[in-house]
């Protein structure tokens, strides 16, 4: 009686709902990669599946004036963050390093300026700009003037080329 189409929708919906626990978790005390990573030596962004963390990252992006150089992802003095070009690597560890230790050509080091879990939140938001996170975790429009399509409406743009490895 319940055809294939219904079953597919049912499974998709149940899967999306079950993702709710992680998506909606509010980790007020903050997360570091140490309590997120399952493989030793590889850092994963602990907020990759957490909509609240990505949303906090979005707020911090404006509050800490990342917009000053990167605009809302389109770039300016700094490179664009919403495209598929990742100069210093697109994996979680590289993005963390970029924010924490800075990079040549003008990216300041924020490691002593903001806490580790805030860096992970910002990194998660930056990854969301190119639509790389799960669809229900991506943020939507901000309560500002419109600057682009909202993150959850953008086509995912996977990073071009191999990311710079951890041994760099």
């Amino acid at each position: 009686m319940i055809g294939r189409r219904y079953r597919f929708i049912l499974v998709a919906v149940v899967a999306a709902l079950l993702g709710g626990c992680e998506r909606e978790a509010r980790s007020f005390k903050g997360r570091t990669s140490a309590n997120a990573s399952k493989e030793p030596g590889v850092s994963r962004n602990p907020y990759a599946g957490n909509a609240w963390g990505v949303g906090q990252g979005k707020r911090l992006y404006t509050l800490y004036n990342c917009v000053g150089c990167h605009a809302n992802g389109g770039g300016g003095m700094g490179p664009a963050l919403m495209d598929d070009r990742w100069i210093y690597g697109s994996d979680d560890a590289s993005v963390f390093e970029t924010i924490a230790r800075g990079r040549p050509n003008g990216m300041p080091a924020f490691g002593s300026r903001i806490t580790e879990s805030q860096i992970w939140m910002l990194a998660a938001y930056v990854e969301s700009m190119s639509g790389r996170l799960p669809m229900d975790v991506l943020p939507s429009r901000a309560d500002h003037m419109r600057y682009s399509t909202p993150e959850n409406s953008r086509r995912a743009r996977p990073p071009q080329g191999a990311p710079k490895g951890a041994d760099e």
Partner: protein
Amino acid sequence: MMPPLTFDPRRSGIHSRARGNGPAADGTAAERAALEKTWHVPEGILGWFSVVDHRTIGRRYLVTALGFFLVAGILAVLMRLQLAVPDNQLIGPDRYNQIFTVHGTIMMFLFAVPVMEAMGIYLVPLMVGARNIAFPRLNTFSYFVYLFGGLMLLIVLLLNSAPDVGWFSYPPLAGPDYTPGKRADFWAQLITFTEVAALAVAVEIVATVFKMRAPGMTLDRIPLFVWAMLVTAFMIIFAMPAVVTASSFLLMDRLVGTHFYNPAEGGDALLYQHLFWFFGHPEVYIIFVPALGMVSSIVTTFTGRPIVGYTAMVLSLVATGFLGFGLWVHHMFATGLPQLGLTYFTAASMTIAIPSGIQIFCWIASIWRGTPRFTPPMLFVLGFIAIFVLGGLTGVTLASVPFNLQVHDTYYVVAHFHYVLLGGAVFPLVGGIHYWFPKITGRLMDEGLARLSFWLLFIGFNITFFPMHQLGLMGMPRRVYTYPAASGWGPLNLLSTLGAGLLAIGGLLFVWNLARSVRSGAVAGDDPWGGDTLEWGTSSPPPVYNFLHPPVVEGPNALWDRSADAPVVTGLRTDCREVLITDVVDATPNNRYEFPEPSIWPFLAAVATSAMFVGSIFTAWAVPIGIVPIAIAVTGWFWPKRKEAAA
């Protein structure tokens, strides 16, 4: 050729006061058997999903709504436990926000409106002398849409995805920036589910009351409960679209990036408040007005006399329905709107006390004039008067802008609305359930348990909510998960929590009484109370065809005014589901119409609709994709049957 309709005075099929309280006497056995077969309620698994019978759907609505009531009650107890002492660490802010939001959302959308609809679905066709409710398949569809929406909310509550922004979910807090994730989307889509279900039922009620009344039931002979349901149905039709607009705009802002509530792009956070409260104020009257109808039924029966001032009562109901749409800004007095507008809304908000007051005066006059019997339903009505009048008066105080500015968004308001909703709607509802339980199940509820549960509910209620007036005056705001000891709010909060315990026990006792009496209550008979409306003129529970022959009504108290030789309508077909359609104003027979057989399509349409609604929380593509199964289901639903074409 169809047999002609006749008005046969000799063949009654229902008893009346003039004839004495004997069982229905007339009607051939063959006729009964044929009607039983034609109007049968299907059995088995497939049958359960295909039922289109209003009594079955009404019972399901009632049981489901009471189930949600229990869930929301448990959430309320959790809230009271957290607030019992200052600086309590029992529940953190995130969980507490989900709990109070879901408590309010369930109570307002999944309990209060559906339970009143349930009583209407069950009783209105019986009270107007019809065999079924208008649009029976739509009725089934509405139940399943309601059920699926409610289940969605319960599931997300267990998955940490329940909405946490209050039952009215204001942006920008509920907007995409400040509530990331899907919590607020589940809330917004729940609105859509319940709105579709409520609109469907409203349309059915209006059609039933206007076009399916028994002959002779002119407008001035319609029972007050039916008038109340009619007014409620119109309020639903005009109010619900506003809230679905508000919630759909919120969903669109969150899902596809529209700017309805974004001030930086020309939107306005206050737009949401206006749209929401344009619905939100009539919503409380949607909950409250059916209860007024129940009170009228109970008072009539247990004073033994017609209500004093029938015309005034009807006009008060209608006036309440109209006036209820002119008050919404009193929820927004603190937002800085212009003074002249605020004064208008003060006047309107105070004015609506007058029709409610007229009703109270009429009931008191009826009690004065008649001989009250202190049965459990009557006790609940007396409790209703004591509690609701107090709540209504605090409402008058809240209507005043300057005083409102002090107590808005404090526990004073929490006290007020629990007095008017619990006292004004739930007490009559519980009384009404005691009253109509014999009709629905054929058994009586235990009277001793009923009295005990009444006193526990009444005392527990007052101990829980009366201190909240004082707490609001002492400055305690709403929606706080804890409070400091230095505020001085501790003792009254503790008192309120203890009262909540009593209230919970009373509620559980009532539910226990219900569950037990279904199986082992005393057998009730057709008319255990000596009621005046038509449902008491048929067996308990009613047969699947409600009435053997539609009765002709001769006065506003149908059974009491029924003369010994009052006619009934014979000649309706018994081999198909034929019903009598009558005129709007004076209920003269107009037409005969064939109602549909049980069908699986409403259930399938509800599944398809629910799938589209839930899918559209996650992606906008769900709408164009999800339309297709809905279209298929609706096509199956409306596919004409071959035998209808025959003469």
